């Protein structure tokens, strides 16, 4: 029989698992688009579990002028959703594995998987942003807009629009879950 985790670490894992699962119910990433002729009505896009939501209609209408192609499918998002669900399960299990060496190894593997997922996600988002800014329809009517790469977090100027890319509530929850689970993994059992 394994020795059970300290109550505080158990709680950290439960919280991390719940946060990770809940992240799937809220927007993960967000984009805001503001321009002089959109006063008090900044356009927003939200990356949610099922795809892209928000002012899709208006953004699609605008894109034709500069040849940006709205991604019709996001396979990396579908993969990420599965990984997040898996991570929530891993964290749940980690709450119940014991203090012994196998348990510790399991928890550190969880931390590793989480860190790898976060790094991979950041890379995937950046790659997609690069593609949106570069894989454009060259026959688009307005030629003045050059290729662009929105930063993963921060602004970029696209024509008359300032586009901000930012992690949304879901990303913040995942980050917090990662911190909590790392803290729990690193905590030393009291003598």
């Amino acid at each position, binding site marked *: 029989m394994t020795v059970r985790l300290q109550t505080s670490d158990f709680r950290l894992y439960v919280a991390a698992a719940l946060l990770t699962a809940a992240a799937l119910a809220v927007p993960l990433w967000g984009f805001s688009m503001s321009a002089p002729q959109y006063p008090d009505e900044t356009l927003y896009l939200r990356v949610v579990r099922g795809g892209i939501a928000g002012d899709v*209609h*208006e953004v699609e*209408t*605008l894109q*034709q002028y500069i040849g940006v192609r709205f991604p019709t499918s996001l396979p990396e998002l579908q993969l990420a959703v599965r990984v997040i669900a898996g991570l929530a399960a891993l964290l749940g299990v980690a709450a119940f594995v014991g203090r012994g060496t196998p348990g510790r190894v399991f928890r550190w593997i969880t931390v590793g998987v989480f860190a790898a997922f976060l790094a991979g996600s950041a890379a995937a988002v950046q790659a997609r942003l690069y593609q949106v800014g570069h894989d454009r329809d060259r026959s688009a009517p307005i030629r003045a807009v050059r290729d662009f790469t929105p930063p993963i977090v921060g602004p970029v100027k696209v024509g008359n629009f300032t586009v901000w890319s930012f992690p949304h509530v879901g990303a913040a929850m995942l980050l917090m879950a990662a911190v909590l689970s790392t803290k729990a993994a690193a905590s030393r059992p009291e003598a």
Partner: protein
Amino acid sequence: MKKHPLLLIAATVIATLATVHSMGCGAARSARSIAAEKVYVAPGELDRYYGFLSGGQSGSVFVVGIPSGRLIREIPVFEPRAAYGYAMNESDPRRQELVDTGGVWGDTHHPVLSETDGVPNGKYLWINDLANGRLARIRLDYFEADRIVKIPNLQGAHGIAVVSPNTKYIVVNGEFEQPTDGLATNPAPYTSVVAFVDPDSMQVKFEVRVNGNIDIADTSKDGRYSFSTVYNLEQGKDMGGMIQFDRDAVAAIDIAAAEKAVAAAKGEVRNQVPILDPDQNPGVLTLIPVPKNPHGINVTPDGKYAIASGKLSPTVTIIDAHTLKIVAEPEVGLGPLHTTFDDRGNAFTSLFLDSQVVKWNIDKAVKGAPDYIVDRINVHYNIGHLQAVGGDHMHPYGDYLLALNKLSKDQYVPVGPDLPENQEIIDISGEKMKMLASFPTPPEPHDATFMPVSALRPLVHQTYTPAADAVQAGKERIVRTGPNAVSVDMTLIRSAYTPETVEVREGDQVTLKITNVETIRDMTHGFALPDHNLNIALPPGYTKTITFNAGKPGVYWFYCTNFCSALHLEMRGRMVVQPKNSTVTLTDWHAAENVKGVVAGVPSTGAEK
């Protein structure tokens, strides 16, 4: 060097004069700056009040920002307006409504707002058409005409008023008297009616017969009485005959008593409307004698008095709004026409002949105090109506007053012999009135009413919610519905029409249903079709259906009339009209198939079929 004393004196005098002169200029500049600041609304800032000015013979309502005086919008009502695609096309139901009720022209005079508890609730604005005896309702959530009705049994729908405090009826005065039996051959006596219109159904619930010319209307704040000024009790048929009597009247109608009589079926029903004869229904109508040919009637915000303006008499008649007794008849100046109020017990009366607004204290005038006149200010020129913000409701704001002047003379740069109307904004916040600014308008605002931007702005929609039958993107189609009939379902969005080519045959009746599928505010598109007398304006989300004849064979480029986007000029399409005897086969067209690059559908040979 020895100075000559005379030279010294002269120098001193010049120096003094120069100082006085420069101080004077400084004072003048500062007064102008103070006035300017009170009406200055910086770019991007909003006005404090919506001003609704009747458009008179323009048949519309002008929406003006107060205090800036900026014209923000014209709401077309009784006259078609190509720019707004309003009632332009024969098949437009609104145009049909206009034609059926009296024509595609109107003369609007009095804008009145729907009220809750005696203050505007931002739901509706009603406006009369004097010329053709009509009443229109404007929805304030969309700023568009919503219903237009003909008022039966009257000619010349002049004064109108909302029955306070909760908009039970709209009162409509019939100004031009008619033979009692409705026959043109019957000489006298002529008579007219005051109509009571249901605000929701816009049906006339009942009318009360009044002899003479029924002029301006208001109602008591408790909803008991409607008040109408009546001139020409002598029933003259020309000007000389209309000014014989020394006194005409204010007609007070007891609304509850009238309702009771109608419920007891005591009215003669004509054109489906019960008409109450006051002789047979005592208690319904009280005629309060006032100096001859009065004009305006205005009830004080506290509901205590109804004030009739003398017009030909230099007086106003103050009537107790509960007992209907005259309590005072003070002199105010020459040609008093209308009265409005601040929140501090003062009345402001327009003086047509003096070209002035006179401010007077109501309590002092009622008590007969000699100093009831507070101030006078010159206006330019021949003022008709005037309205202080909120003065026509139970909560006056006491800050701005609009003078609606009939003549502008020298006030604007000459623009030929037909001069603009002149509106002036006056500061009434202090003891003395101050002229702040003026702005010209097209002909011809008669009256105005106001609503705070803070109260109305949240109720206003800036896009339409698509109707149930709106054309959806991807569902556009061209379908031949008969040998000479084609139905087109079209959408538009920056910067294209779908379908962009419409092929029809000479002699076809084209029914076009068109939806603007934009969802963002201010993205109105137009649809102008050359040589077809046709322009439609479609705000975001709006759907319009019209039917028109295809016309002569040819290629007609329809295009967007509302500058919309970087590709606005490219936003167009073709209507190709094939000759009647052409052997070209016209096919139906469906957007879904077209997307796949195949124009499929049921072949149709059009006219030859």
